[in-house]
């Protein structure tokens, strides 16, 4: 059940240019959060900018009640958020989303992410590792300057494969191609993905064609984040062509089975 808390910012770090990691004390949210959940942040008590910002959870430190999230400064809202200082209180609602990453049934996990979509995959990988699963992780970035969290992901995965589109760091090309290449050898029983839409589409297509279980974390513009405004619609895969039906990313998701959604 989501709660609204005024969470104290206890640590702040700019991990690469324009991308910030915030650690906040939010025991009430941490307690009930699962890998894949997100939070909604109100960056001001004024009416401009108006809406909350949905941001995925990067790490849950359950022992200390610390929640970590990472965000890129993209507009006015994230700009204001990035100016918060250690000690400031941040208005957060969470955990949100009833569709979270499910790992119980699987033993060999392929985790794939791209760019700023990699953040929720950290808590997923960490949790799966603690469950003694094998976790191989494929993270794709545009180029060397955009590579981040390599050391952190190394600690929570068995194998970490970093790719850059231009080959300026580690493996050249797209993360998905490396995953497909390893498939015969590794025989993963579930793929978990979060990242840019073209990547998600490629992962979904591959998983469906090869009958591999696959869970996708999706993004869509949100109004409330609570399942009320019905703004963040995503088409169901089963819906008839002339009469589309929709799930909502904030409530049914953000994580969906690849079989269920048309993206």
């Amino acid at each position, binding site marked *: 059940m989501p709660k609204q808390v005024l969470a104290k910012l206890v640590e702040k770090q700019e991990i690469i240019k324009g991308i910030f990691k915030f650690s906040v004390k939010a025991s009430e949210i941490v307690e009930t959060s699962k890998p894949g959940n997100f939070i909604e942040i109100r960056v001001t008590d004024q009416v401009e900018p108006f809406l909350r910002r949905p941001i995925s959870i990067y790490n849950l430190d359950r022992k200390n009640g610390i929640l970590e999230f990472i965000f890129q400064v993209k507009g006015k809202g994230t700009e204001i958020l990035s100016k918060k200082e250690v000690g400031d209180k941040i208005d957060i609602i969470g955990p949100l989303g009833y569709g979270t990453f499910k790992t119980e049934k699987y033993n060999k996990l392929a985790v794939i992410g791209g760019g700023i979509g990699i953040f929720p995959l950290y808590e997923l990988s960490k949790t799966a590792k603690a469950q003694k699963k094998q976790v191989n992780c494929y993270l794709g970035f545009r180029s060397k300057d955009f590579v981040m969290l390599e050391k952190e992901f190394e600690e929570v995965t068995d194998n970490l494969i970093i790719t850059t589109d231009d080959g300026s760091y580690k493996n050249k090309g797209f993360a998905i191609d490396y995953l497909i290449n390893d498939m015969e050898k590794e025989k993963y029983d579930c793929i978990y993905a979060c990242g840019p839409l073209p990547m998600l589409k490629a992962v979904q297509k591959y998983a469906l064609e090869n009958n591999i279980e696959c869970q996708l974390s999706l993004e869509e*513009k949100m109004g409330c984040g609570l399942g*009320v405004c019905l703004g963040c619609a995503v088409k169901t895969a089963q819906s008839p062509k002339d009469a589309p039906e929709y799930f909502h990313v904030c409530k049914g998701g953000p994580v969906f089975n690849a079989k269920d959604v048309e993206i």
Partner: protein
Amino acid sequence: MNTKINFAGIEMKNPVTVASGTFGYGREYADFFDLGKLGAVITKGTSLKPKSGNKPSRVCETASGMLNSIGLQNPGVEYFANNDLPYLRKFDTKIIVNACGSSIDEYVELCKILNNLDIDGVELNLSCPNVKEGCMAFGNTYEGVKKVTSEVRKVLDKPLIVKLTPNVTDIAGIAKGVEDGGADAVSLINTLLAMKIDIYKRRPVLANNTGGLSGPAIKPVAVRMVYQVSQAVNIPIMGLGGIMTGEDAIEFMLAGATTVSIGAGNFVDPYTSIKTIEGIEEYMRKCNIEDINDIIGKVEMN
């Protein structure tokens, strides 16, 4: 101190309600507070048959507000009656169903069903700007409003409120249609038809191109319209549009609203409605007002 209000025959513990489409059927907000604290819950726009709504993207942020083009996605009146109504009834609040349709027949059929349900009133939606048929198409002329209202009145014994669109030239004249059609009250304003363009894609942000603007950006327009309507009709008014605080609510009541509704403010802070109730009480204490009914329409023009 009295905050009780009789609105169109509905006895409310305070004048604060939550607006259609911003509160679902109450479940999500019951995670945060007791819905029994509200004067009334106005449900998501509900139609005779389920509606799946518009293509995404359906929402975007604008200056001090937002656009939506949901397209009245809802599970239909039968599902509501079997699933949501019994849930809402557990709370000590009034239930008003926002009713939408694409033809007069559909409005009438729907209201026949609603008349037999355990609800406290019906808000006729003649104002949604995001569907091709019905709603705003009826709501933008005196004749259209009067016709739908009077046809529904024939089958509905419960309190009838008609929700108006601001996308008209003469809001007061149209509100007369509500009164002449035999409704008990009028609510206004629904969202303002609007558009936002992504300048890099050179396309509107919403898939439906246009959507309804809500939030504090529209409040002054709403206050003006509530005042104009209050001068034109004798039925009570529910005022809404960008209310975030008790002060905002008082402004609407001074302009002539008997009750108010919290809309997009629910998205920003789940407690906006509760804080509005507290804010109204605080204003009453500060200004030595014994009875909230004493401030309705008490604005003095310059």
